[in-house]
């Protein structure tokens, strides 16, 4: 639709810095303190949050307005937040306070809600449907509830059908629902929605002079019992390595021998389909 006469929009993107998914094997858990051991694993913007940021940038290209990033995290996240600025965000608001550590999704949503309220007016909030790391997919819906706005989840397509009305595809397992809503609202997005742009050199240069504001809980009038572990309704009480339920029988020798032994075993156990009745559907 014709966008030139429509009002500009203030979009907030919730972004989380996470350990690089490809380096997950290097992360270990301290069972005693129930915290992640601080290994030097590189951090990235959570993949679906990149899709959220991309969607925000496209909306700004069409409608004008602002793209601000809101994030709660530890100081190690700063590099990824600068990356968001380099990708095109106008400003970052970063809640970095030790009191926020150990937060469950409700405590996280509470902290982000305070951060976003502090940022002033907004029309639309975008976030990834779930983060890599934690991956509950709960924060978006809870944040919307705490801010008193509507939400649409698993959005694979978003467009404006009127100045302040969105139409979206909200993914289901076997298709999608067509959902409309009035701004302000929150949309959590899935990978399908767009292909995120990469950083450009002019973008990286411009990022240096864009504001990255670090705030504490005190700045946001957040009490200690509202955030972090103290503000969480759920808590982790134990971490353990699961017992292996299977007797791993290693089939050794030359590959040909191992394969023969395997197929013989599978036939013996009736785990293979009968010849000629291959069920189809493989792809």
């Amino acid at each position, binding site marked *: 639709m014709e966008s030139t006469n429509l009002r500009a929009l203030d979009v907030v993107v919730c972004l989380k810095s996470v350990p690089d998914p490809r380096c997950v094997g290097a992360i270990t858990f301290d069972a005693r303190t129930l915290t992640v051991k601080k290994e030097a694993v590189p951090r990235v913007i959570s993949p679906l949050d990149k899709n959220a940021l991309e969607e925000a940038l496209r909306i700004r290209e069409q409608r004008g307005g602002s793209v601000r990033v809101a994030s709660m995290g530890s100081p190690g996240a700063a590099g990824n937040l600068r990356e968001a600025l380099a990708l095109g965000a106008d400003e970052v608001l970063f809640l970095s306070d030790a009191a926020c550590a150990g937060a469950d999704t409700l405590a996280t949503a509470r902290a982000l809600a305070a951060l976003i309220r502090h940022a002033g007016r907004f029309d639309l909030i975008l976030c990834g449907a779930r983060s890599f790391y934690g991956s509950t997919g*709960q*924060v978006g819906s809870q944040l919307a509830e705490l801010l008193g706005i*509507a939400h649409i989840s698993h959005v694979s397509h978003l467009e404006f059908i009127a100045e302040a009305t969105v139409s979206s595809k909200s993914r289901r397992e076997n298709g999608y629902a067509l959902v409309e809503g009035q701004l302000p609202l929150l949309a959590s997005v899935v990978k399908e929605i767009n292909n995120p742009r990469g950083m450009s050199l002019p973008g990286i240069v411009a990022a240096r002079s864009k504001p990255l504001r670090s705030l504490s809980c005190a700045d946001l009038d957040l009490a200690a019992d509202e955030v972090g572990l103290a503000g969480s309704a759920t808590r982790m009480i*134990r*971490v353990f390595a699961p017992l292996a339920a*299977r007797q791993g029988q290693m089939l050794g020798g030359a590959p040909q021998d191992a394969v023969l032994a395997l197929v013989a075993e599978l036939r013996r156990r009736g785990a293979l389909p009968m010849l000629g009745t291959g069920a189809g559907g493989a792809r």
Partner: protein
Amino acid sequence: MSAPDLAPEYSPGVWRGLWVLAEQRQGQLLEVGLEILGEARKLAGRLNAEVSALLLGHGVAAHAAELIARGADRVYLADDPALEHYNPDAYSSVIVDLALVHRPQILLLGATSVGRDLAPTVAARLHTGLCADCTALDLDEEHRLLQIAPVLGGKELAIMLCPLRRPQMATVRPGVFAKRHREERPGEVVPVAIGPAARQTRTAVRGMVTEQLPGRALEQAEIVVAGGAGIDGVEGWRLIRRLAEVLGAGVGGTRPPMDEGYLREDQMIGQSGVTIRPKLYICIGISGDIQHTVGFQDAGVVVAINKDPKASIFKVADYGIVGDYREVVPLLIEELQRP
């Protein structure tokens, strides 16, 4: 419409009962609701509490009998045109209103696209705790719910508790629990009238579009062949698919190949993906991170092929072959085709 300023606190004895959302889509009950009902029945036995199913929709009353036969002592039936399609405002207002009146100690939902949106919405409105994607549930000595789920991309399981807030909420993936057999048992159906809040929704569902995805859903496949980060490119995946074809198997895998486009999202097996229970599961070039292994822990026979003898996948497999898949898989294909 802002969240009500409530803080339901835990008082022993006040919050009683296990509730399960009996999710339905376009008039059909989803299996996951029946599976969780089966587990809830077991927990209820230990808690000496009742199990109630929440059935929301339009024209769904006939399903109440099935829910009772599968373990529900009570079905709260909210049948109204306004509930025909899932809408977070409508569904959560019905559930929250019921929860504040009847005070269940536990509320469980399937971790489906709907459950993953509805559960956090309800949990936020009730200011209570919610654990996602639990792979097991248990009770502690004080009869509090223990929610067990894999932790942070790691190799361990975490046990979580919601000590103070009620209801204790959790989502559980399809395929984790088993349905209970049908039986003749008593149960009551409680019709629920919906209030204005369920009709004044801030978003509107204009329609549902069903898409037929190619191939069979992985959850129904009797045999699944899966590839991981160890599979090299187009040629490697061609080999995986050829093996699957020979076996009449579904194809799945882990996150890295999905991120690179070799697999769709519904082919990713694991905590953030699908849970499967095939008769035979063959995983190739997969290291065995628990994020993935929880996705097939109840498979019949598990075979692992990996060139790293120390890969943790071998600890959760019935049979393991250490070798290069580019050598092993063609031999396997050949042997399987031998009459």
